[in-house]
């Protein structure tokens, strides 16, 4: 019996809830890492891993899998949360995040952790690697697709625009770039540090199909990902309007939790809000 849209969204929401709990726990245990930009991306990453993408946690190297490239590599917590929920790594292992000898490095390392497609961390590089993957799929005439998650601050890197140009030039309609437009980077609001807008116009001018969505509205996420599947010789850019730290009242819409874990008291409050046990 196939799942209705309502059931699907219910399921995704439950997974996303658990992913946010993992993100908060993981960064708390490590006493470092990046919860804010992980929580803003959670609903989209959950939809990719638990609905949109074809992949096999039992066979991470399956040749025809869809690829997810986390270009904003500091947001490993959302990636590891998805990989744990999908079964690539044990949930228990999240405790080792950022510790010596762990597979769960601060920034993604494809040589260490199953399911990681690209070693990123230096911002601005993931989209180029995604372009290379999409080119390979075209060369081999394979149907698999590439999804790449960008940060808004990250989009200040010139390499993003070199990659954007090449993706359109090579007509990579198997490539989807998703901008996690959470409005903050480290030194403050993106708008104040170095404005990147209007991104839709920029990507359009670079030859991409573009769309804007609410990155926490599952109907919109599902619709746009489906639409991007038939992009007609153009790569597809999604500007996802999100909230940094989404999911907990006091972390939401703030830059403060970009690169720090919650304190013990904050964790108690956050977990109470989420209806979860702490400690």
């Amino acid at each position, binding site marked *: 019996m196939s799942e209705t849209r309502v059931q699907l969204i219910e399921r995704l929401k439950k997974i996303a809830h658990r992913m946010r709990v993992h993100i908060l726990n993981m960064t708390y245990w*490590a*006493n*470092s*890492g990046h919860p804010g930009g992980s929580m803003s991306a959670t609903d989209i990453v959950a939809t990719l891993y638990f609905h949109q993408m074809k992949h096999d946690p039992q066979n991470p190297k399956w040749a025809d899998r869809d690829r997810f490239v986390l270009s904003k*590599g*500091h947001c490993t917590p959302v990636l590891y949360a998805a990989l744990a929920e999908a079964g690539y790594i044990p949930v228990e292992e999240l405790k080792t995040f*950022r*510790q*010596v*000898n*762990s597979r*769960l*490095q*601060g*920034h993604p*390392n494809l040589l260490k952790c199953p399911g990681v497609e690209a*070693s*990123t*961390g*230096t*911002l*601005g590089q993931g989209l180029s690697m995604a372009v290379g993957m999409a080119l390979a799929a075209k060369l081999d005439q394979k149907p698999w697709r590439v999804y790449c998650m960008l940060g808004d*601050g*990250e989009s*200040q*890197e*010139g390499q993003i625009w070199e990659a954007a140009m090449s993706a359109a030039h090579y007509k990579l309609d198997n490539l989807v770039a998703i901008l996690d437009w959470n409005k903050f*980077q*480290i*030194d403050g609001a*993106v708008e104040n*540090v*170095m404005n990147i807008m209007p991104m839709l116009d920029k990507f359009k001018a670079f030859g991409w199909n573009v769309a804007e969505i609410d990155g926490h509205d599952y109907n919109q996420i599902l619709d746009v990902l489906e639409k991007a599947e038939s992009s007609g010789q153009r790569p597809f850019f999604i500007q996802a309007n999100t909230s940094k730290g989404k999911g907990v009242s006091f972390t939401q819409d703030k830059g403060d939790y970009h*690169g*720090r*874990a919650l304190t013990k008291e904050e964790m108690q409050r956050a977990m109470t809000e989420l209806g979860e046990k702490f400690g």
Partner: protein
Amino acid sequence: MRNLGSLEQPKPVGPLKVGDAKAMRDAYGETLVALGAKDKNVVVLDADLSGSTKTGLFAKKFPDRFFNFGIAEQNMLGAATGLALSGKTVFASTFAMFATTRALDQFRNALAFSKANVKVVVTHAGLMTGPDGASHQSLEDLAVARTLPNLTVIAPADAVETSQVIELAARERGPFYVRLVREKTPLLYDEKYRFKLGKASVLQDGRDLMVFAIGPMVAEALKARGLLKAQGFDIGVVNTASIKPFDAQTVVKYAKRDGFLFTVEDHSVLGGLGSVVCEVLAREQPAYVYRHGTHDLFGESGESKPLYKKYELDAEGIALHVKKALTYKQKVLRR
């Protein structure tokens, strides 16, 4: 990067003494503020890391002379060059990784080639950077920077030396690369100390072996000296902050005396301090060199203490390697 630290001016807690801990980057931020007050020509650039590099202290005081380029290090170094070519004294900061490997072409072909008056002051060098892991732990930047013509390259050992290096960089014309680290480190010097470009600072002489150290390794080497003393070994410690120009004379002097030297760096042994020492000796005074540092590898996540333990860069690790070196020394020099 986590716990960015506050951008408040640290409250004066009375003069710090040798042995007290202070981050080099805090000294950098404070010195920038002092320089900015003295000289209107000083401008400061950053790339979305002003809280971590501490250029934020300057930004707060002199917002008109601070430019945040966002996460765009290549553009920052290009623009730094342009500002300098138009008469400004420019300080440009980000993490070591992003200034050297990310923006290397701009560093080489715009900044260094033009002999632009830009001081590239980086923080978060080496394994000490900690839990961010390999992508943020620069282990190659000294090797890269010292091959760039026109560039002066310095890696201070504590906060006192850092302030002096920054003041000197502001005074001298031409491009500088100054390598700082993330964590607080013990003060090795008091205000009587004078940093000299191209001069090593001999902190302790030693009968058994001279340890040439750089950056945070100097403090660890001094601690190792204490550990080894208790075991009956006597090692000396030399701070080689000035990598380029380098104090060949001091190295040659001890090589002549001992025939065997030891180097230690939180950096790859390929191209860093160990290489510099070997290059000098190959030309002037062939001798054995035991190079300790990272050996052709990428770093990994972990707090800096357990990482230093794993890679044997803490005092205990250095002591272990010194003993290995001494065994080797006995063997090779007896032949």
